[in-house]
């Protein structure tokens, strides 16, 4: 039993990395644009499928499709954001609520489209790293670190560092932070709020799509995988504390560890229920997230 | 107990390292209009939030009508007789003016018929009866401030907390609001009022409490407080306005 522990931990960390990328984009969209995007899982799914198209039709390694996937989806996001904005700033109905329902509807439409075009079958993405793994012999422990998962972690860290740099060291990042804190004031200060918002959303969609490629390569992809991913993103963010970006990495790794422990020690099909129960308990104890810094 | 409506004993509100209210103690006796003044950030609204149950004091005791109410929920305090307005007015925007008052009326009048009668009564009292069916979002600022007071009045409070109900109004509207406040006082409600408009608060208050950086630096009748050196220092220059032009 105990011999499996280090593997469980490694798996957990690697899983956590993926959760992190999923949640980071989601938090960004919320923190800056105040959009809770129900379609986050669908963006990931669609990204994975575009990656699939690249590998199956063009014979290109999935990892090489990353930049193209990013560009395609960043543009899609950029174009979509004004629509979202119009819904969110509507004067009739209840804008925030309607924004949610809108993205919910989009998610449904995307899922339906994917199911129509790609069917219900599960695929997986092949990359040069798919088969490889590091093996570590360490006393009684035998660890396997699949290279592709490691690549996923590297990707997650790259995204975080990239975000950090972008937000703190560039003019664009400054504009983004200004918009996040006070849209009107930022506009008055000369920030093109519309363009900045569209760019942020495009960034978020692009990154989510790239995450999809990794998930497709690491696990698998199918047209119905969106909802579970959206739920995972949400779990991470609520666990971290809504709006508290700094808590997201911790929450992501914690959830990754919990999930990997479940996969190794218990029945995998109960994972969602287990995660939900844990989230439930945490919310009972501390509604503002594990650091009590949520909104 | 001394028959005080409200009593604060060494109430402290600390937010992390920031001490917004620093060991403030005072009493409010029935029928008074007590004004709280102080520079921005002095802790005035924080005290309101503590008294109305939105914040739990870090330390100290708050007693209402002789009972310890420290840390009680806002709805419990409303039921006990504390009504408040908010500095940034919060009407129930999607509801009509009448409905806004009606919801508040349910506290004392659980039945629809009685609640409606009460609501109309309040609407007439505050002068919004002609705009009863208007969506609350469609009111002018003056109307919204009036509505805010109306909601609190529908609770039939013994203590009414008014948070900057005059700020942002033109002189005519401000005078009308002052008349309304005096009318409320005449019905037997004790009033605690926070205001920046000096001439208003100095004119109607029986007693003034001055806060600065969370501490109470002076307390007394308006004329006394206006002459207090610490108060003058805290305000630097507004004292001339406060005493109506005469220099101390």
């Amino acid at each position, binding site marked *: 039993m105990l011999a499996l522990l280090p593997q469980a931990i490694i798996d957990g960390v690697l899983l956590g990395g993926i959760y992190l990328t999923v949640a980071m984009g989601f938090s960004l969209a919320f923190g800056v644009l105040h959009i*809770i995007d*129900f379609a986050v899982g669908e963006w990931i799914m669609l990204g994975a499928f575009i990656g699939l198209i690249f590998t199956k039709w063009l014979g290109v390694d999935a990892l090489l499709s990353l930049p193209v996937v990013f560009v395609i989806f960043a543009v899609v996001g950029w174009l979509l954001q004004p629509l979202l904005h*119009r819904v969110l700033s509507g004067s*009739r*109905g209840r804008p*925030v*609520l309607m924004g*949610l*329902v*809108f993205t*919910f*509807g*989009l998610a*449904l*439409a*995307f*899922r*339906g489209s994917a*199911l*129509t075009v790609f069917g219900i079958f599960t695929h997986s993405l092949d990359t040069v790293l798919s088969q490889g793994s590091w093996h570590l012999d360490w006393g009684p422990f035998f660890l396997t670190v699949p290279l592709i998962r490691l690549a996923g972690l590297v990707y997650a860290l790259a995204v975080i560092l990239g975000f950090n740099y972008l937000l703190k060291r560039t003019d664009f990042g400054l504009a983004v932070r200004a918009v996040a804190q006070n849209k009107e004031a930022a506009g008055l200060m000369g920030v093109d709020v519309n363009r900045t918002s569209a760019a942020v959303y495009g960034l978020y969609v692009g990154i989510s799509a790239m995450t999809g490629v990794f998930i497709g390569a690491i696990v698998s992809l199918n047209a119905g995988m969106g*909802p*579970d991913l959206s*739920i995972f993103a*949400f779990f991470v963010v*609520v666990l971290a504390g*809504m709006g508290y970006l700094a808590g997201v990495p911790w929450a992501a790794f914690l959830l990754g560890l919990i999930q990997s422990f479940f996969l190794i020690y218990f029945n995998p*099909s*109960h994972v*969602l*229920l287990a995660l*939900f129960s844990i*989230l*439930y308990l945490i*919310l*009972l104890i501390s*509604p503002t997230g594990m650091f009590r810094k949520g909104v | 107990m001394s028959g005080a409506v409200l009593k604060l004993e060494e109430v402290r509100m600390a937010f992390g390292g920031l001490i917004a209210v620093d060991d403030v103690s005072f009493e409010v006796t029935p029928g008074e209009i007590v004004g709280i003044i102080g520079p921005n950030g002095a802790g005035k609204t924080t005290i309101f939030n503590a008294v*109305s*149950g*939105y914040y739990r004091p870090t330390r100290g005791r708050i007693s209402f009508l002789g009972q310890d109410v420290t840390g009680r*929920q*806002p*709805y419990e305090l*409303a*039921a006990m007789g504390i*009504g408040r307005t*908010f500095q940034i007015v919060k009407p*129930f*925007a999607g*509801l009509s003016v009448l*409905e806004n008052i*009606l*919801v*508040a009326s*349910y*506290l004392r009048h659980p039945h629809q018929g009685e*609640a409606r009668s009460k609501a109309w009564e309040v609407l007439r009292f505050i002068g919004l009866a002609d705009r009863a*069916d208007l969506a609350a979002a469609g009111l002018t600022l003056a109307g919204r401030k009036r509505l805010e007071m109306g*909601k*609190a009045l529908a*609770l039939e409070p013994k203590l009414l907390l008014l948070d900057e109900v005059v700020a942002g109004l033109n002189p005519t509207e401000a005078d009308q609001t002052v008349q309304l406040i005096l009318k409320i006082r005449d019905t037997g409600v004790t009033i605690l009022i926070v205001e920046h408009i000096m001439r208003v608060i100095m004119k109607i208050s029986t007693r003034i409490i001055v806060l600065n950086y969370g501490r109470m630096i002076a307390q007394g009748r308006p004329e006394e407080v206006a002459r207090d050196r610490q108060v003058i220092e805290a305000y630097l220059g507004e004292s001339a306005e406060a005493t109506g032009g005469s220099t101390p």
Partner: protein
Amino acid sequence: MRGRPAWLWILLVIAAVGTVPLLIADAFFLRLFTEALMWIGLAITWDLMAGYIGYLNFGHGVFFGVGAYTAALLITKGGWPFWPALALGGLAAGLVALVSGWPTLRLRGAYFAIGTWALNRAVGQVALVLDFTGGPDGMRLPPFLHPQFFAYVMLGVVGATFLILWLLLEQAPFGLKLKAIREDESGSLAIGLNPAWLKLQAFVLSAVPTGILGGVYAYWITFIDPSSTLGDLITDQAVVMAIFGGLGTLIGPVIGAVLFFSFKTYFWAYLSDYQVLYLIILGLAIAATVFFLPDGFWGTVANRWEGRRALRKGLSLGQAAGT
């Protein structure tokens, strides 16, 4: 409204609708009739949370599924008769609402939506793996093929639900209190409302009839499985219908349900080979309604009506004030 009280009108309408199964005995028509009623029930119970309190329950179907499975289990494994099994289905759904509502209602509207969505999926997965619920193959119930019976049962359940919700939401203080919470939860505390308690009550109230509807569905269709009762489709369709009809009223979702169900039936007749297309249409319908008609069909109509009335009133006020 002057004249006869609202509840009398409602009863009259229900009675009028109740004559339909007597007049038309065609089994296919009755099936559609019964299903349309079921959707009305699902749409109005969803609207209770979404329209009146502003809390989107994207896992509303879990109540339906819990009710369906509870009734099915009691009937098949426990040998219970129909009516008590039905009642217990509703009770079970209410219990799920009570237990899950307590922490999840603390979440802000959006996160509540995902939380309930997650619950629905989690319960669906449980039903999928457990043996005694039949796993992915679902459960079969003893056949009881009486279309008129089920038409009346559904009418009774939905009619009663509508009436009760009408009384509670439009006549009693409860509805206005919920709306106040929707408008400003924090401010509602100051006027003596306890939002946590009120929200929980509403949540349970939205769950119990839905559970009962699930139970009726189980006995009526005689077959249930995780995807039909605990899948996303129940919630998704209820959402479209309520939004399309108009949130925040009881009439809106009724209209939305009838209109959308008619569209769906028509669609099915012509395009049943493209079932996956239905998801796309649902999604686009939701998005388009939000974009173009956020107040829904009934909401937009009612607003115009109100607007004209207010305009007339305002004009007369203006004249009176001499402006």
